[in-house]
């Protein structure tokens, strides 16, 4: 019994189905907050409610394939690259506003170099410097993206208006 369960929970099919079922349930429960309405005057919950119900059914059907002997074992591969890259992106999101584009981009690049094959520190620093300069040049000066370049602290200290926060596109 437990071996069957282990086999099933080790399959791609089971987890794909489980993911869709859970997401469907989340949308289904969330839709409960809104008015359903009638077929001629549908409320905001009508279509999403129906779709999420459908997703739950399809998800369960998908998960059921995990019991089939033809099911494929799940292989997530090494998770370190994903974890490092997502961390780098999250750091960028967190640092952009308080510390500006230069710091955020440099951190993004430096952290992300930890995701792949090993980098020499010098190469990583060079890459970070190059990409940061490119990003600042292309996006902030070239395209006029409204992003602070330097930490907000510098800005108030210098109050020179050196940060380029030109018009919102």
């Amino acid at each position: 019994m437990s071996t069957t369960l282990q086999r099933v929970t080790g399959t791609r099919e089971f987890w794909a189905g489980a993911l869709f079922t859970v997401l469907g349930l989340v949308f289904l429960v969330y839709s409960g907050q809104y008015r359903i309405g009638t077929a001629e005057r549908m409320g905001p919950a009508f279509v999403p409610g129906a779709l999420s119900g459908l997703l739950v059914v399809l998800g369960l059907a998908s998960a059921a394939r995990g019991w089939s002997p033809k099911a494929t074992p799940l292989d997530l591969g090494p998770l370190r690259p994903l974890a490092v890259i997502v961390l780098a992106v999250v750091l960028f999101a967190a640092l952009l506003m308080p510390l500006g584009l230069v710091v955020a981009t440099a951190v993004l690049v430096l952290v992300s170099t930890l995701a792949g094959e090993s980098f020499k520190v010098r190469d990583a620093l060079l890459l970070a410097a190059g990409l940061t300069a490119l990003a600042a040049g292309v996006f902030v000066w070239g395209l006029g993206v409204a992003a602070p370049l330097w930490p907000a602290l510098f800005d108030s200290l210098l109050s020179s208006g050196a940060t380029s926060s030109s018009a919102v596109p």
Partner: protein
Amino acid sequence: MTDVFGGIAMGMGAALDPVNLLYCFCGVLLGTLVGVLPGLGPVATVAMLMPFSLTLEPTSSIIMLAGIYYGAQYGGSTTAILVNIPGEASSVVTAIDGYKMAQQGRAGAALGIAAIGSFFAGCVSTMVIAVCSPLLAQVALTFRAQEYFSLMVLGVVTAVVLAHGSLLNALCMVVLGLLLGLVGTDVNSGVERFTLGGVPELADGISFVAVTMGLFGIAEVAANLASPEHRTLRVDKVGRILPTCHELAMSVGAILRGTALGSVLGVLPGGGALLASFSAYSLEKKVARAPTHFGEGDIRGVAAPESANNAGAQTSFIPLLTLGIPGGPVMAVILGALMVQGITPGPQVMTERPELFWGLIASMWVGNLMLVVLNLPLIGLWIRLLKVPYRALFPAILVFCCIGGYAVSTSTFEVWSLALFAVLGYGFKKLDCEPAPLVLGFVLGPLIEEHFRRSMRLSDGDPTVFLTMPLSLAFLVGAVGLMVMVLVPQIGAVRQAAMQEA
């Protein structure tokens, strides 16, 4: 017909405007540049470069986006031929014979015939767009909510049927995409749905740039790093770029057939370049005159799919421009970009914004010419770009995705969403769920809901309204027919075989 010529003349005026010419050039160049990079297909390329176009006025913007798209398409073929890593599904078949040719030292001829075939296909399919779009737009003006609804259902079903891997997973992906598309303010009631307790950034819905870049850009990077492929660059000898007269003569038939097939298949919802290149390759294998050596470097195996995918890429603009319905994920991104610009694509664009419509068509000609002129001499540059190791490349991709995502709405919330969709995208990849149906569902979600609600309101809640209107019925029958075709075991097996062949 006179309208068409008048339109083309007006379009040429817009496309040859120095500013638009510049953006067309930039689009083609940037698109090829990013498209050449292994692992970045046209969807990721267009999504990544979209922020560049948003600051422009609408006509220049769509001209540039279109340039990026066919540049990316061509760049992907270059990579497929030189390193056997197709950047996208539609150049998978190009890699079969193209890479073999490169191994035999005939990379130049393969790249040359790809460029020539694409150029010819581009010219013909642009003409097809110019002639067919006004006619189709006339028909589209008679569409009511039911027809739109049924047509979109057909589009979504086609995307499911064409997805790789499990059909059930593809269905789930479409439904999930539709649901994600409904996040945000409900236009009928003004209620904010699924905004996680009123997050203001979610009131306008989840940003589709975050979705596409997360699923196609960052998740892809993570997957590539998790299973490092050893690229072998076959560039010791590119050989002469222009194909010989013999090769050219051999390819003429293939180019013509590829163009015709691609132009037709590109128009189908959910079809586009992918279906076109696959079918063109299998058609060519069936009809080509002996001696054939497909799979071992037959030039026709490059000429046919390349012509077809370029023709398909162009004509896939038809449903977007005339009906406002994107046929595939790339068109979904372009639709999103147009909406940001305040333009809702549909049959009215042709009459309300003729300079945009005809300008785009004329710019396709110009852009295709640029592709040839640009790419043949720049092959050396693309090869050098392919030598840049991936570990130096992926941080650059991340930087572009993050800043680009932020720039679209000047909000770091988009970057957080990007991270979330990257994790989801990685999971989907490992669970054998292709993201393209999700993206199509995501863009069509609000439209499908709106047309469904409107039809039901007008019919007083009678669902048979979708079956009593002939055109609407035809679309739904088509959708059901497609599903049945895939579910019937024999035909399903053929689909498997066709996918395996790649």
